[in-house]
């Protein structure tokens, strides 16, 4: 493990109820401390009415731990975890719009696209849209490859990340639903150190 005070990328996973204004409540926990959010994804989770946030920031573990506690303190937040990049499997999706003529004429482009795992989503007379999914450097790499051939437009999604050691949230949620939850729900990082899922 790196030093607690050393900055690195952290993936923060938040399970919440779906409520207007909660995004702001979570965002201001970062902005108040002048911490930039590098990537933010929010979408419904596998459980009905529960949303999952994936937030990426570059900070020290010491700071991230305090942030997760502030996030978990919010009324509509069920649970907040943080993980290093090594503890998650993550992907970002990117879309590239390129002139169809260029691709049709230049065989090399077609090969490069195939080598980079790109897949055509839309093919029109005037342009073609390719999609690729991967780590930041992979999607970045394809930009530099397509740039000489007249990349018209590019967009990349926020990061989504799966926690390697997680047992999922279903069981935990059932505990949450109970009026008198067991100890697992209100976890204590001191107890969980060394266990599979490290959480606060």
């Amino acid at each position, binding site marked *: 493990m790196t030093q607690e005070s050393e900055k690195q990328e952290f993936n923060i996973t938040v399970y*919440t*109820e779906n409520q*207007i*204004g909660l995004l*702001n*409540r979570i965002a*201001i926990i970062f902005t*108040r401390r002048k911490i930039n959010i590098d990537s933010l994804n929010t979408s419904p989770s596998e459980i009905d009415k529960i949303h999952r946030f994936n937030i990426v920031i570059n900070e020290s573990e010491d700071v991230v*731990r*305090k942030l997760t*506690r*502030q996030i*978990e*303190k919010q*009324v*509509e*937040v*069920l649970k907040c975890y943080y993980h290093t990049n090594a503890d998650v499997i993550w992907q970002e999706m990117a879309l590239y719009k390129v002139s169809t003529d260029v691709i049709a004429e230049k065989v090399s482009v077609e090969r490069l696209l195939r080598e980079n795992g790109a897949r055509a989503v839309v093919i029109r007379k005037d342009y073609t849209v390719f999609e690729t999914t991967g780590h930041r450097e992979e999607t970045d790499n394809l930009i530099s490859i397509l740039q000489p051939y007249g990349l018209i437009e590019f967009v990349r999604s926020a990061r989504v990340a799966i926690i390697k050691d997680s047992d999922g949230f279903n069981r935990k949620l059932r505990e*949450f*639903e109970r*009026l008198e*939850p067991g*100890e697992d*729900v*209100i976890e*204590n990082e*001191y*107890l969980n150190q060394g266990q599979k899922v490290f959480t*606060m």
Partner: protein
Amino acid sequence: MEAIQEVLTEEKPTETGIEVSGSVALLEALIVEGVDTIFGYPGGAIMPIYDALFDYNDKLNHILVRHEQGGIHAGQGYARTSGKCGVVFATSGPGATNLVTGLADAQIDSTPLVCITGQVFAHLLGTDAFQETDVINITTPVTKWNYQITDATEIPEVIAKAFYIAKSGRPGPVLIDITKNAQIQLFNYKGYTPCSHIRSYRPKPIVRPQYIEQAAALINEAKKPFILFGQGVILGSAEQEFKAFVEKSGIPAAWTVLGAGAIPTDHPLNVGMLGMHGNYGPNVLTNECDVLIAIGMRFDDRVTGRLDKYAKQAKVVHLDIDPAEIDKNVKSTVPVWGDCKETLPLLTALVDEKQHTEWLAKFNDYTRQEVEQVIEKELNPTTAEMTMGEVIKQLNEITKGEAVIVTDVGQHQMVACRYAQFNNTRSNVTSGGLGTMGFALPAAIGAKFGAQDRTVVAIIGDGGFQMTCQELGTIMQSGIDVKIIILNNRFLGMVRQWQELFNSRRYSFVDIQSPDFVALAAAYRIPGKTIDNRADLPSALSEMLNNKGSFLLEVMVTKENNVFPMVPQGCSVSEIRLK
């Protein structure tokens, strides 16, 4: 209307329901929650609620304030003395934005409040309508929870959540914004059920016996243990449990400003106040103790001074209900998460009965030095002009420590907290975390409504008084009995003190002129008196306290007096200065 109310105020929901407006449903909810007093100010967007309130006059005592900031500070004062939730009404736009200072104050000082603001019609949201402002987003950073109601059917459930969230766990302010259409809208009301569970909200961490055991083991081995206690003891109504713990363990205990009064000031194990203007011994010995036991306090920077030189030699046991406070500022050796009303008795059971005579004597040594060099001069001055300290000492002698003391912010606040005697809990009402000048006068009004059988004395500086003196109008109209002492040093004293000590006496804009305070009070039909002679102090204080109803006493004190001891900013607590 009478007949409907009879039906409605039953706590159990009726099966068939009854058609009422959102406004009536709101007021019914307040009654079931046990609300008796509301501090508020009407306006366009909250008119339907005020119209309904007209018929609830006998059940809900609405106090018309003079400014919404006064209203929310009154709500805070009420919550602090009564232990109940303060309730505040304000209209949309400027009414709501005027609440912001009070919300921030309540948030940082963990005061339970439910604020109801009116809002423009739902169809006008986002159109820059008259008196429309984005209250939810403005107040998000300064509320524990907030919510906008746009449909009357939401009212019973949301208000129930609001009270539950405000009061449970670590308390805090909640704001509910209700659009005008929801206030007017008729719906089938089936009664009000208080909330006791929200699936995503865990107000109390589960108590872990293994940490209690570890904490007890540390405490039992300690040679020089030291307790720091804060408002958590009071908010958790754990004063008895705390006293039992202190007395069995025999450990000296010092308090934060908001913890004052959790055990009586004259308790033999109460060694005094912590922090920037706290007592000498508690500050110096923080850096000498071997086990530091922090109970319901959050290691504010005004308490810790320089963090990297704070209690580094000590093992830290931290008891707090809010997991986010553990390790936030000071790394704990043993975290005891939980409500201290539950954790303290468990800990008391495991600690050895002890007396730390030698260690306690160290505190007393420092007290002796502090008395010689600071306290004696402050309480028994030989100067011609009066000091703030002697006013507090004289007040103690008359009230015998039974009064509720409400203070504003600045030098008088530190002096009052240092020297006031508190026999009872919920007796010290002050703006601790936010340091809101102008807090005291309206908070004192609320404090009196929250503790009507107690004497409430507001101690205010000449600067702070002028920030919210419009609330004299509230005192006049409500007839509430608040004793007001203005300690007038003709300066913004605390800023002046810093300018003297750290800015080479460059007194930049601290020379403040005041109106004739007694004449101002008289304009509001409040009797008053001003004194500048020591000989008049006892009789003037007695006159004030014996007066039926409110009274304003202005005491002229030394212009350039400094509050000592002092831990200068950026210094360690052990570098505390006596002069």
